[in-house]
């Protein structure tokens, strides 16, 4: 009796096991993307007048499509479902089959999708490919933020269509973010490294809230509230998404600067071309006048001349500025319409020469801004950034340095850093402290920064004395 029962159980379980194998096979052979591919083939067949071709379309094999982007270190399988991305006839097709208009040079086979849109390129199901919120590495970027990722490749010069990034970069430079945050491994680590912060695990909502009020999303955040307005918050969020530690091949790196006449004008001024050349008679006469040069020479010739002057004119005094392809393109674009007025305005921008002492102080001021000292000490050295349990409860002002310290002491604090004295001896360690800058700033630059600080002292002191 017992044996009979067990035998029946054995057969029943065998069938159950077999059924599960069938379920597993069925689950594996009916992925979402196959449904989409069938739909797409039907869509294609609808527009096909020839019956034979129609039948062929419907019988096309169902397979995973992938774009191997070795130059970007990515593999994108998005086109497994987004089958009409590079097919203009799919302009009005429903998603996920619609044609991606306006890509310009950013063709899908060279760039894939995820480098701009985020999401998980390797995934072949909607949920994983688009992500469910959370980190942006796994989630699609909201459409309004996609433009921010232009900065991942175009990280030199401005991107005309993304003014937010220009503004974001300006804010980061002027508000002293680098004083605490690392970027590509440089600068101290009071705050987290920003390079992959947005890319890896921050949503746009989190970033925007964070820039409005750091303490709102991270309790006890040491980051001072900078009271950014709405546009600035958006610009900084854009900037965060433009950062990436992604390694790119030369093909992509060549496009870091977007060529344009405005970039060309800037380069023309920066490289001091008017030191030898003139435009329509305005400038120097050492080299040829560049007015109308694009009419006299082909763009290719000028490009060759800029990139390798010695080959075109052996023995010429024109230096090789080692400009990238896009920088050269920009210069040529500028030269195409350059007028004597341009030359005049460039010359008028040139500042009056500084005395050696003034030059030291000025470059000290620039370093002070560049390394983010202003982030805590303020652009006017006024200090005042809240710092819990530090003496006085805030970051000290730097305008009375010479009353409390010797010049060498100041140098040493910058070099070796300092933890501020505690307000309450048994209280917590203050979140902000002076990092040791020795490893990030050269000795000469530290000297210049201190010279800048002392230049501010004297003025303040004089004010007080009177």
């Amino acid at each position, binding site marked *: 009796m017992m*044996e009979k029962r067990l035998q029946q159980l054995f057969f029943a*379980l065998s069938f159950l096991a077999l059924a*599960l194998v069938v*379920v*597993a096979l069925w689950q594996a052979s009916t992925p979402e993307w196959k449904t989409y591919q069938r739909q797409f083939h039907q869509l294609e067949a609808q527009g096909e007048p020839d019956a034979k071709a129609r039948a062929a379309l419907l019988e096309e094999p169902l397979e995973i499509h992938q774009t191997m982007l070795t130059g970007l270190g990515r593999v994108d399988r998005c086109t497994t479902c987004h089958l009409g991305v590079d097919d203009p006839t799919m302009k009005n097709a429903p998603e996920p089959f619609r044609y991606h208009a306006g890509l310009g040079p950013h063709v899908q086979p060279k760039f894939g999708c995820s480098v701009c849109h985020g999401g998980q390129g390797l995934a072949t199901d909607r949920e*994983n490919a688009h992500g469910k919120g959370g980190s942006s590495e796994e989630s699609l970027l909201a459409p309004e933020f996609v433009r921010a990722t232009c900065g991942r490749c175009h990280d030199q010069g401005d991107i005309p269509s993304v003014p937010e990034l220009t503004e974001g970069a300006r804010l980061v430079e002027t508000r002293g973010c680098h004083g605490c945050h690392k970027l590509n491994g440089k600068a101290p680590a009071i705050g987290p490294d920003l390079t992959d912060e947005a890319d890896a*695990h921050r949503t746009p909502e989190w970033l925007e809230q964070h820039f409005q009020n750091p303490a709102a999303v991270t309790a006890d955040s040491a980051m001072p509230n900078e009271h950014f307005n709405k546009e600035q918050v958006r610009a900084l969020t854009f900037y965060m998404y433009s950062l990436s530690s992604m390694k790119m091949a030369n093909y992509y790196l060549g496009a870091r600067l977007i060529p344009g006449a405005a970039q060309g004008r800037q380069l023309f001024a920066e490289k001091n071309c008017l030191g030898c050349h003139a435009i329509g008679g305005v400038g120097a006469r050492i080299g040829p006048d560049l007015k109308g040069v694009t009419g006299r020479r082909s763009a290719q010739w000028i490009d060759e001349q800029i990139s390798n002057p010695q080959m075109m004119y052996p023995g010429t005094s024109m230096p090789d500025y080692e400009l990238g392809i896009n920088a050269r393109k920009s210069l040529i674009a500028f030269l195409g319409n350059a007028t004597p007025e341009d030359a005049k305005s460039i010359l008028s921008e040139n500042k009056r020469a500084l005395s050696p002492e003034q030059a030291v102080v000025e470059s000290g001021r620039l370093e002070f801004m560049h390394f983010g000292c202003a982030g805590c000490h303020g652009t006017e050295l006024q200090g005042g950034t809240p710092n819990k349990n530090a003496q006085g409860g805030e970051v000290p002002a730097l305008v009375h340095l010479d009353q409390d310290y010797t010049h060498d002491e100041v140098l040493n604090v910058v070099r070796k850093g300092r933890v501020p004295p505690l307000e309450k001896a048994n209280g917590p360690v203050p979140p902000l402290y002076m990092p040791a800058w020795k490893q990030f700033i050269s000795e000469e630059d530290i000297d210049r920064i201190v010279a800048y600080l002392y230049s501010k002292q004297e003025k303040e002191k004089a004010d007080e004395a009177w």
Partner: protein
Amino acid sequence: MTMKLIREIWQSIVRRDPLSTEKGKAELVFLNVWLHIHPAKVKRENLRFTHTFYLGFITFFLFVILVVTGILLMCYYRPDPSLAYQDMKDLQFAVFMGPFLRAAHRWAAHGMVICVFLHMLRVFYTGSYKRPRQFNWVVGVLLFLTTLGLSFTGYLLPWDQLAFWAITVGTNIGGYAPVVGPMVREILLGGHTVGEAALVRFYVLHVAVLPSFLILLCVVHFWRIRKDGGLSRPLWKLKSAPPEPEPELVTIGAPAASAPLRMQAASREKTYGLMEVVTGKPIFETILPEEEEDSVFSYPYAFLRESIAMLVTLIGVMAVSLVVHAPLEELANPAKTPNPAKAPWYFLGLQELVSHSAFLGGVVAPAVMVLALLAIPYLDRNPSRQLAKRKWILAIFTVFVVANVALIIIGTFFRGPGWALVPPWVHVAGGTE
């Protein structure tokens, strides 16, 4: 001609006489490899489900599932930090049945750790480690440790955040041992941190060294079951047979326990074994005539039950794998420590202890546990297997088991950021901050 060839091939495979002859019928049993691992006959009472719960068999079958799924996974996996995670993603998204395969491998692995532990509990509570089975208990403990080693080395292979940090924490716990700890850790990792050298080493251990070792131990373990007189008798059988007859035992090479320690002189009348001289009575628990009547043929009685246990295991693993996929977190990032970073779940008891005292959790507790487990059959001098007569050791062992399980539960579910005590129903915002 062809018929002759076919017959020759057939006879080369089935080396027995036709079943129509008496000799052929006998050889069907004698020459059968499965009936070689099993005895041809087993005691009826030992087949009872509630005696063994078939836990040892289920554990072994989970290992078989792991070998099969593991070999298939090896076809798609390359143990290099730059490729491993990519391969995991391919398994998840592009390989036919990849997610099912991975899930089956992972859940069978966790199942094996659990089953091997439950099997140990069963053997302990039924007192089956007692004479003559002491050494098989030791082999069993080694099998348990090898299973943990297999699970631990496999944990790193996906090369995601979960894998990286679990192994970092796990190997750090091992590093607390004085003198040898840091050295063993360095040999295991091929460096001071978990990196590409560690990945290759863990891979080699996981797919070659530890499985071979486990199979070897299994061979000894199964062989010893037969040589120690088959499965131990159920406890209820002991109650019905009041004065348990102490079975006369003679082990190969060594004299009976009662005999003074000396080598037996070889005799002309005796049969010579290959290595030692066999003397005295048969080498395992002698079967009394009344017991002979109580035994049944392994085929079909034992085989049928084992097949059912096998099917239930297979169905369990498949059903869970169809519904719950194996986790895969983001790519391993040595610069980004998750908070809290946890070891694999079966080491969370140790990690919990380490959080109180590194020396206690990293050195004392694991050393005492392993040594105590290995020594149990030799420390427990009480010959009785009856529960009522083993109160002390049962109490000690139960406290040990409950404490372990409780610590693992606390470590798994009640520890939040900064290893602070956070109940699982409380959500902690921030997380990695």
